[in-house]
């Protein structure tokens, strides 16, 4: 039973974590992309379409990431090159993604998909209890963890990460030092798009192998909120995503057990619990402030 619950929690948390880690890097570079939902849903439709057309879920997730990158480039062009308002452009990207994905996916409605295979290592996956949890997941689950460690390492331990943070904290200084602010931000936005696309593809290829319009159902917004409440730290975003997934799944179990809480309250619980916990662990206000990218959402026009 516990094993089954943990397995369900992993599937519920993975799409949030993938998208959140991507957005975290974007925001660290000083760009606020509110279009995560739109990029995710594009990843979902592209992932499904490629999977069904080629018969390969692996190609499907690559397709999802590519779709995420393509729509994120649109956002990057509008906000970085044309210096449009990031908040408005991000919202527009979400609406655009939801609409376009519906159009693209029209012929895929009502078609069963192919599920991404899970890892199966003889001897290890069959281990009692830990086997399936540790060695029986699909590639995107492992990738989401690799992304958490990778991004954490990249931001804090590499020179490129330092440059990215400098661009996000003070783009004028970074520019004066000779770094290409716009170039760094383009790359960051594309990374965010790829990760959101993967998160979306996870939904349509691994979580529930089907395509229906709007199937992200607000997960992009939750990923966005996780980034802020995690005060831009990858491992906190992971805690947040898993907490959110856990409470979502556990409240279903609580309902099925017939614990007499009102279901509306239980439905609210994942949001409430995640916000409270993440705010509590971000208790040190100075550290949080220090970690906030100071140029977040501010437009940048190179002066020369």
């Amino acid at each position, binding site marked *: *039973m516990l094993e*089954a*619950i943990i397995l*369900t929690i992993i*599937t*519920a948390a993975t*799409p949030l974590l993938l998208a959140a880690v991507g957005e975290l890097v974007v925001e660290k570079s000083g760009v606020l992309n509110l279009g995560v939902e739109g990029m995710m849903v594009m990843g979902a439709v592209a992932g499904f379409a490629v999977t069904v057309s080629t018969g390969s879920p692996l190609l499907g997730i690559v397709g999802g990431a590519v779709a995420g990158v393509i729509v994120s480039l649109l956002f990057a062009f509008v906000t970085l090159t044309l210096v449009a308002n990031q908040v408005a452009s991000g919202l527009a990207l979400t609406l655009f993604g939801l609409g376009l994905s*519906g159009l693209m*996916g*029209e012929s895929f*409605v*009502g*078609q*069963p998909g192919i*599920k991404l295979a899970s890892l199966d290592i003889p001897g290890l996956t069959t281990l009692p209890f830990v086997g399936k949890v540790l060695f029986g997941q699909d590639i995107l689950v492992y990738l989401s963890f690799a992304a958490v460690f990778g991004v954490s390492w990249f931001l804090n331990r590499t020179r490129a990460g330092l440059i990215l943070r400098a661009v996000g904290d003070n783009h004028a200084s970074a520019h004066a030092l000779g770094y290409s602010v716009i170039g760094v931000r383009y790359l960051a936005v594309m990374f965010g798009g790829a990760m959101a696309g993967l998160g979306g593809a996870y*939904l349509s290829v691994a*979580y*529930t*192998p*089907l*395509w*229906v*319009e*709007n*199937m992200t*159902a*607000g*997960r992009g917004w939750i990923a966005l909120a996780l980034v802020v409440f995690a005060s831009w730290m990858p491992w906190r975003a992971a805690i947040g995503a898993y907490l959110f997934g856990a409470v*979502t*799944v556990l409240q*279903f*179990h609580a*309902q*099925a*057990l*017939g614990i*007499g809480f*009102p*279901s*509306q309250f*239980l*439905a609210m619980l994942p949001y409430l619990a995640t916000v409270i916990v993440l705010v509590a662990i971000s208790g040190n206000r100075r550290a949080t402030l220090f970690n906030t990218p100071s140029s977040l959402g501010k437009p940048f026009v190179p002066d020369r």
Partner: protein
Amino acid sequence: MKKLALLAGTALALAVGAVSGASAADKLKACWVYTGPIGDFGYSYQHDQGRLAVEKELGDKVETAYVENVAEGPDAERVFERFAREGCGIVFGTSFGFMDAELKVAKKFPNVKFEHATGYKSAPNMGLYNARFYEGRYILGQIAAKESKKALAGYIVSFPIPEVVMGINAFMLGAQSINPDFKVKIVWVNSWFDPGKEADAAKALFDQGADIIVQHTDSTAAMQVAEERGLKGFGQSSDMIKFAPKAQMTAIVDNWGPHYIKSVKAVLDGTWKANDVWEGIKDGTVHMADYANMSDETKKLAEATQAKIAGGWNPFTGPIADQSGKERYAAGVVAPDADLLGMNWYVKGVDDKLPQ
């Protein structure tokens, strides 16, 4: 006297017919408002299939329009008002939650005809239509009780509205007619449409021992989980057999086409009236997908029950007691439609507290 009234009525109908006939020289515009995306392969998808059936049947006599993804609330009012202003002859509001918004707009535009699905408020120019889905759910209950090895079904539901409560009750009445001790576990996902959540809820219910899943939410996710686990379930709104070839035993399919064609034709002929139509298995509005993945005995039983319901028998025929054991309908008494449409109590044997 009666004859005279009838005559007057006919004359009036003729007059109205003449008037609308004159204006119908140009096309009639029929408009639909959907709560979900038409790509949901569920509730809104089936309504849109009905719209397409109208286009096919009436061809160039009608022009159709629709707006999908309309939130239930103030947004809906704007959509209805826009349709009314844009010259729609008849507007269909397809979701319970549109009720108040649609009624408000209907009162403002007395010359436009409105129909509202699954609600209970009407106006001289706003009719009601609904499908007796509970008839199908009674059959599901019987199948579940026959086929479940654990006498336990999991039930995924969206919101505690009468339509949903009525469905749970009909399901339980069906199940209890086979096994009086049959149990159901209920999980509310507080959404009509979130495949991920529906899948999670299905997993939770299976993990807690249910071996059959029933859903009153729209996506195919729960059926896919059933297929994966080698367990059984029932599709909702659409025939989901492609998603769960070994798991779907049957599905309640919403077949709105016949009603929409009838209504739009009536507007064209000038005979439209604000009716209160509630059709079911007999009229074909509620269609049962092919019975599969069950024993022959169960299949025969399901077919027999379906025939009995098509013959006019109502699953909500007493004796029916509520959770407290209080008798609501005495033996042989059929619950009136008004009671069903406002149903806010569970029948005996449901272990759940109804969210109020």
